[in-house]
């Protein structure tokens, strides 16, 4: 495998982890978030600072990073308890801009220069790079997917689905809206934090602009494209949106136009996403399954 495709593959795996996290919040619990890149950034900055200034290794820093992003996610999930839909969308955009400007203007976070010299991840005495990093990211992605799968099978997952469908009806069934919205926010943002930590140690240099609002839109597009609330949707979305820009590199000036066209087509023809309910893929699959004797 060429270095180029390894890099693309690793970034896709990392973004898929972040998209899975957003899927927990948006797809499972039905809480719109347009600022998910903020948590991606918080994870990256936390891991970068802990391993450079803090002198910790990636592995000892990781639980702290997950704790920090989860905790900030809990705190920033609080607005979702009072706001609905459009207002929550605007609030989360605001959160994204605030986090980016804190990274950009507070000297502690490296200011406009960002943070450089982030150490490589060391595993079994080996410095992880190239294919190993791709495999490590894929491993973390698999773990993330396993957690998502277990979550959808658990009572907590069912409670989140019920909240997404009808909050009033769910609360009159004994489901606490506060508890499960916050659970979804903590879980989803911790996954973004994991993606951020991997990103920091892969790029080894980060700056605030990597985690701006366009990144949030990109992550949300992945979730919508693949299918909100499905297990594999965010992974497929990350794959498609990770590969497309490479394929269409000659058309790079028209990239935003292509994204917009793609999203509009999705909304028109496959509103549930590529793997969502009533999607072509689902229908074909169930037809194949039904066709077997």
């Amino acid at each position, binding site marked *: 495998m060429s270095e180029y495709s390894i890099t693309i593959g690793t970034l896709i795996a990392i973004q898929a982890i972040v998209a899975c996290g957003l899927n927990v919040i948006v797809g499972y619990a039905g809480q719109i978030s347009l600022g998910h890149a903020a948590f991606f950034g918080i994870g990256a900055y936390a891991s970068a600072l802990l391993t450079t200034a803090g002198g910790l290794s990636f592995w000892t820093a990781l639980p702290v990073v997950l704790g920090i992003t989860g905790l900030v996610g809990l705190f920033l999930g609080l607005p979702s308890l009072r706001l609905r839909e459009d207002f929550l969308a605007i609030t989360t955009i605001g959160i994204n801009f605030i986090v980016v400007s804190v990274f950009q203007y507070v000297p502690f976070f490296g200011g406009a220069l960002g943070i450089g010299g982030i150490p490589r991840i060391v595993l079994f005495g080996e410095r992880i790079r190239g294919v190993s990093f791709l495999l490590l990211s894929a491993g973390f992605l698999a773990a993330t997917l396993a957690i998502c799968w277990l979550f959808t099978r658990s*009572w907590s997952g*069912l*409670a989140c*689905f*019920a909240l997404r*469908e*009808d909050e*009033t*009806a*769910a*609360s*009159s*069934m*004994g*489901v*606490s*809206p506060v508890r499960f919205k916050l659970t979804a926010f903590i879980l989803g943002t911790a996954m973004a934090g994991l993606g951020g930590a991997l990103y920091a140690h892969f790029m080894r240099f980060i700056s605030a602009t990597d985690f701006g609002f366009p990144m949030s839109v990109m992550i949300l597009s992945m979730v919508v494209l693949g299918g909100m*609330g499905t297990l594999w949707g965010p992974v497929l979305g990350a794959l498609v949106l990770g590969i497309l820009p490479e394929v269409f590199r000659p058309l790079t000036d028209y990239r935003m136009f292509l994204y917009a066209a793609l999203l509009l087509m999705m909304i028109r023809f496959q509103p549930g996403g590529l793997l969502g*309910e009533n999607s072509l893929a689902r229908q074909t699959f169930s037809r194949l399954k039904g066709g077997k004797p």
Partner: protein
Amino acid sequence: MLLEVRDLRIAYGDIEAVHGVSFSVEEGELVSIIGANGAGKSSILNAIMGLVPSRSGSIRFKTAEISRIAAHERARAGIRMVPERARVFPRLTVRENLRVGLYGICDRAREKKQLEWLYSLFPILAERSGQNAATLSGGEQQQLAIARALISDPCLLLVDEVSMGLMPKLVDEVFKVLQELNRQKGLTILLVEQNALASLEISKRSYVLETGRIQFEGESRVLKDDPRVREAYLGL
């Protein structure tokens, strides 16, 4: 007394919809509140469930004051509701809808027993168990809403306008099921209805609500023959 409501007032903004209503439900009773559209019937049920806040007054359930605790805590205490227009979870399957009703009571053996019972009560739900609730007809959704409320074996079942939007034959069936649950299983039910005649027929006691105040109360069979009730609500 299982449920005792005293001087309940409910307001939406500046407009008061329920002006100091008092009533009670004893264990094992089937009580109905009847009244015209906009009389405040649904507001009262929603206030008991905790879905709308009450301005003042007390709601006591099993001797505990519940008017200030959250809806999900009241559900845990044993109150369940069949909401107006069913409000099933559309993108969850019938089976998943029922499981949400069991949330907090995760007991596999009990789940199986309850499902068997409910599927025998509403056979159509067994047939549709793997289907999304959105694909059910209005009547089937109403049955699912009842089953979802019953699965946890509630102490008090609140039923909000179950007849609305159902065809007459189904209304009779649903009312029959509620009556049987009350008579055979001793389930306590508080029913809110526009369909006054049908609810007077199955309930033991009734309250007649008019623009946020209780106008008449008493035994249902007495109310049914009361000329004032007959004229105003039964159109006889």
